[in-house]
């Protein structure tokens, strides 16, 4: 009798048990999504608040003392000057390859008239900032993230507090300024090198005279595009240094938190790069539409 009862119960209660388990799982999943969403939103707000704080300090003249200036110079040296040989080689190589491929495809499709527009619209305003940001993010953003995380773990930030040294002024501001300056200047440099190598390769590959090449570029060049490109570079420079600083600050007292903070920081840096790219494209299309 008891066996029969157990068998019946198992037979009739099985769907109910499954439903119950499904309900629990769904609730947990929805809770998890909500928690993640709230966390992401809170993190975004924190980052925004931090960015505003840094921006406000950036326009405060009193923040720029000799120590800050020295740190800024050192940061520019490490971020921009040291990377120059590699950067210029990459720019010349990439420029030659990209211009060669673009030119060949345009000739193949019978659209060589759009060569100048592609050079200015794609290579200068999109490709140059993207490659520059990618190189600087891989080299310097990760370094800044690790540096801040190590300082946090070693309690060097606390020491600076004890000595009443403003961490934002002394540590963060020069690095962020360096990021902005480096990205803007290096992007322009990248564009100039790419266009110069394009001049050589156009003459070699497409029998294009220097005068024709310059004319094609000038016809397609717009000041508004270049201004938007510079603003985009500055924004990217700001965020690719600020986000690693923010995530470096999140490191705990344990050494193992350093790689975790670098990992999160770099992932967010790349997300920020993508968002800024998309926003800049929208802004450029709006400018083309209304101006």
């Amino acid at each position, binding site marked *: 009798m008891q066996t029969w009862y157990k068998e019946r119960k198992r037979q009739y209660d099985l769907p109910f048990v499954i439903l119950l388990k499904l309900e629990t799982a769904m609730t947990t999943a929805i809770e998890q999504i909500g928690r993640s969403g709230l966390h992401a939103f809170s993190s975004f707000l924190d980052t925004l608040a931090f960015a505003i704080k840094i921006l406000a300090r950036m326009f405060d003249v009193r923040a720029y003392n000799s120590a800050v200036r*020295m740190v800024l*110079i*050192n940061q*520019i*040296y490490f971020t*921009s*000057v040291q990377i*120059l040989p590699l950067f210029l080689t990459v720019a010349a190589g990439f420029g030659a390859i990209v211009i060669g491929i673009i030119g060949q495809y345009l000739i193949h499709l019978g659209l060589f008239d759009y060569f100048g527009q592609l050079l200015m619209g794609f290579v200068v305003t999109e490709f140059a900032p993207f490659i520059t940001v990618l190189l600087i993010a891989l080299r310097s953003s990760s370094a800044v993230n690790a540096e801040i995380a190590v300082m946090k773990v070693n309690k060097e930030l606390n020491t600076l507090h004890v000595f009443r040294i403003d961490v934002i002024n002394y540590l963060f501001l020069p690095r962020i300024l360096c990021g902005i*300056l480096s990205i803007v*200047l290096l992007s*322009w*440099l990248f564009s*100039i090198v790419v266009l110069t190598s394009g001049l050589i390769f156009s003459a070699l590959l497409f029998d294009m005279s220097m005068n024709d090449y*310059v004319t094609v570029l*000038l016809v397609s*060049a717009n*000041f508004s595009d*270049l201004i938007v490109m510079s603003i985009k570079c500055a924004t990217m420079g700001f965020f690719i240094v600020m986000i690693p600083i923010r995530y470096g600050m999140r490191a705990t007292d344990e050494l193992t938190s350093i790689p975790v903070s670098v990992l999160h920081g770099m992932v967010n840096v790349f997300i920020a790069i993508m968002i800024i790219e998309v926003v800049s494209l929208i802004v450029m299309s709006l400018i083309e539409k209304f*101006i």
Partner: protein
Amino acid sequence: MALKTEWRVGLFIVLTVLLILAGLGYMAYKKGIFQPENTYTLSSRTGDGLSVGMPLYFSGFKIGKIAELELSDKGMVMMKVRVPTQHAKWMRSDSKFVLEKPLIGSPKFTVTTTNLGSSPLTSNSIAILTEVNDINDAIQNIQPILEQVAMITDNVERLTSALADPQGDMSHILKNARELTGSLSSKKSVLEMALGDEKSVRNIHAALQNARNITDQVDQLLKKTDEELYGKDGIIPLAIKILRELVINLGKIGKTLDNVTKISSNAEEATKDLKIFRSEVDTTVNSLNRLINELDQKIPFKSEPKIKLP
């Protein structure tokens, strides 16, 4: 080290900034940003399709742009067009300003000048902007076609209503066709369907049988004729044999005739020799006569005149 770093950073910043400024300056110079500009005023009936910054094209080249747009007291759209002085030569008093609105794509603001010798367009004068609207033109062109299409649909409607009318012609035709097909479906063969009479069909069958018999007889006759003409002992092979023999005999006669021709030519030549011989004999006889006469004159005393012949 610090000085070296500062120097390097400074050099990097200064050189890069100089490069950027040089590039921008060259671009600005080439784009004519530093060049003085002439401002011209144009009026238009409507501002639709016009916008500030819109480029002005001459022969496909951008020579200026719209700087201002405003509505006058009279309701006309007044616009200021800025053109660099190097392109001012294309702006003449009889230049035509056109706003082209294509069917597809954005409007294009162009100026055309046919007579470059006419007086230059002054900043005070107000030129008129005309509008070429491809959409309106297309609608105007399509309008007659649409009217024709409306007529066609009207006719089609009338046709269909006539077809659908139970008392209409089409209904009568269909009724007749139904009756015809009904009567045809009751017949045994297509011929009967066509003739409508079974006796006639039988007569046609008999006539066809007779025709078949006649053709059989004709066929036999032709076979016999063929045998007599082309058989082994037929007329045609015999005639061929006779003709061949005739050809051989004719060849022989030809040879004989050739020999006769040769003989006649020889005889002709022989008769020519006889004439010569005759003349020579005549000459000799004459000379003997002369000799006898001479001897008679010279020796008259001989009692028996005797002449020894040569």
